[in-house]
């Protein structure tokens, strides 16, 4: 699904973007169903097949699809507590990812990590549950890529809430100072849990903050996957060619709660939020302009359902970790350990 950075968006490219978005949504809907299935009648966060906090990404698919269309598995991506859309768009394999979310031995981390701690060395994907803490490691990955003389890039994604954390600002400065091939992406979904951006952030656009660190800053206003694609294409091309970092902020949408179980009583736009769902909006545009046919869309959906069902079945049928094995993996084992 990777498209060359310099290429203008073709119709095939547009279909690839909606295809990625559909796959992500299908995945999140399935995880959501599994998450709630055995937490009834009373919601108990620790119960069921998938325990703990669950941060799903519905509504933010355009960011993941638009950015990752320019990446190869050789490029690094660091994500947040809300990582699934980025993992999927970056081509992380669904089976071990899902098994990790289910806490199974076949998961990326053999069940040690869980949904906020997915590490896939094959695609250089990682995430963290601590706000803004994915930025500094992305600098290091970019540093290593630069030292090896390659044109690989690292992309660090955070929410707009994270842009008020010290690590965010330290990272921007250092990346610009050392001209690292890194792209910072802020997903502005208007909310940091219950706190609206107007009550957390002193500027209207985080893209404005880029100037303070001597790097270009772009704000994509309307959760449009094509606008994200264009902005990311430019930023990633700049990074690949030695032009240093860029900050992109995308005004996106949190379609569901901060985490599952969040009643969102604090949210005044709850009634109208579904109207802004980017998937039907983009789909209809592509259908109307003849880029996409109903048949193609249905085929995308069917393929997504098949992949997701396969991953969930794989996870469900995988063994749980052996409790006696609870001391493993703290340190490496082998000649250098």
């Amino acid at each position, binding site marked *: 699904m990777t498209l060359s950075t310099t290429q203008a968006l073709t119709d095939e490219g547009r279909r690839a973007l909606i295809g990625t978005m559909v796959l992500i949504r299908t995945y999140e809907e399935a995880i959501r169903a599994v998450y709630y299935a055995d937490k009834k009648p009373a919601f108990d966060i*620790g119960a069921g097949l998938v*325990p*703990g906090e669950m941060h799903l990404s519905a509504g933010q698919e355009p960011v993941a699809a638009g950015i990752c269309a320019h990446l190869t598995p050789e490029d690094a991506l660091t994500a947040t507590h809300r990582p699934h859309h980025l993992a999927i768009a970056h081509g992380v394999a669904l089976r071990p990812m899902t098994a990790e979310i289910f806490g199974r031995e076949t998961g990326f981390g053999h*069940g*040690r990590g869980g949904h906020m701690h997915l590490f896939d060395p094959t695609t250089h994907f990682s995430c*963290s549950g601590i706000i*803004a803490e994915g930025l500094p490691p992305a600098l290091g990955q970019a540093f290593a890529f630069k030292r090896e003389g390659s044109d690989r890039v690292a992309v660090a994604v955070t929410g707009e809430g994270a842009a008020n954390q010290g690590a965010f600002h330290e990272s921007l400065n250092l990346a610009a100072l050392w001209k690292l091939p890194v792209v910072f992406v802020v997903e502005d979904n208007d909310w940091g849990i219950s706190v609206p951006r107007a009550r957390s952030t002193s500027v209207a656009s985080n893209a404005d903050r880029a100037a303070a660190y001597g790097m270009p800053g772009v704000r994509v206003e309307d959760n449009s996957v094509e606008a994200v694609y264009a902005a990311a294409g430019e930023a990633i091309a700049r990074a690949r060619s030695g032009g240093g970092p860029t900050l992109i902020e995308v005004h996106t949408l949190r379609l569901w709660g901060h985490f599952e179980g969040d009643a969102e009583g604090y949210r005044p736009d709850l009634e109208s939020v579904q109207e802004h769902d980017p998937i039907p909006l983009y789909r209809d545009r592509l259908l109307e302009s003849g880029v996409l046919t109903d048949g193609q869309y249905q085929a995308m959906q069917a393929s997504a359902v098949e992949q997701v069902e396969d991953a969930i079945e794989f996870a469900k049928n995988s063994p749980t970790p052996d409790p006696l094995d609870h001391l493993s993996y703290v340190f490496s084992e082998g000649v250098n350990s």
Partner: protein
Amino acid sequence: MTATLPSHDQSLALAIEPEAGKRKLSTAKAIQEAISQRMVRDESVFVMGEDVGPYGGIFSSTTGLIDRFGPERVLDTPISESAFIGLGIGAAVEGMRPIVELMFADFFGVCMDQIYNHMAKIHYESGGNVRVPMVLMTAAGGGYGDGTQHSQCLWGTFAHLPGMRVVVPSNPYDAKGLMTAAIDSDDPVVFMFHKGVMGLGWMAKNERSIGAVPEDEYLVPIGKARVAREGTDVTIVTISLSVHHSLDVAEKLESEGISVEVIDLRSLVPLDREAIVRSVSKTGRLIVVDEDYQSFGLSGEVIAVVAEHDPTLLKRASRVCVPDVPIPYARELEYAVLPTPARIEAAVRDAVAI
């Protein structure tokens, strides 16, 4: 500046009994009530943190406070812990009494400098001339599958660093009285509640997380342990949610004629060394149950207290803690590392077999 501040009114009753009035509250509600009552009495008390306003705190430590006191005194902050914890320190230095919530203790990593190099050291560095009367309230503990970065207790880490009192209530009565004492304290207090003792509707809970709480204000003095259950064969020294598990085990083993004494420390700093020694003098067998990591922490400290006092008191000392691994995500693994009732029971049986 602050040296001239009058100390808070300490004349409040210390002696109100938990059963007085018999009204029952969850630990979360008890904390809210303590904060609310002090905010009524003292204009200088304010609450600050992430999602403490309309959301009411992720673990309901501040529910309803914004409705009562307004956004000037209950402030949602950006996700900028260094900045707002530091702000709390500065406000405290100038005579306010901030209650600052760090959403999870696990997040101290992004703001520890303000906590241990500033909040905890200013009084010392100033030769006692500057006080930092603030409460740093934070959630701790696991057991619900939240993984390595959202399940840690870490109280031993705070307690290791001089200059902050570290309070860890196990039940609603203590939580209210200790929070009141924490607000009144002229020293910084880290007030750590385990999510599993809060009595939340959306998390499995022990029945002891809901209990009798007097409506009036009262203090539970910081630094005094509580004998949660008297016994003669073995002493369990513990804290927080592990108190509940230890009491469950003690009740179960009573029918077999094993008599377990359970000491709820209620705070790590100050540590009630006398209470520990007193109990072990009676039983000769000591088990420390702690949901924090095992090495270099509370459990070793408690055993050292007895060993330094009189090693001949000890027929047996052991600990039931989290072995030195991060808290795993998968339930099977998480429950293999947590100090579960089953592990506590095995330790008691092992101890009395000697």
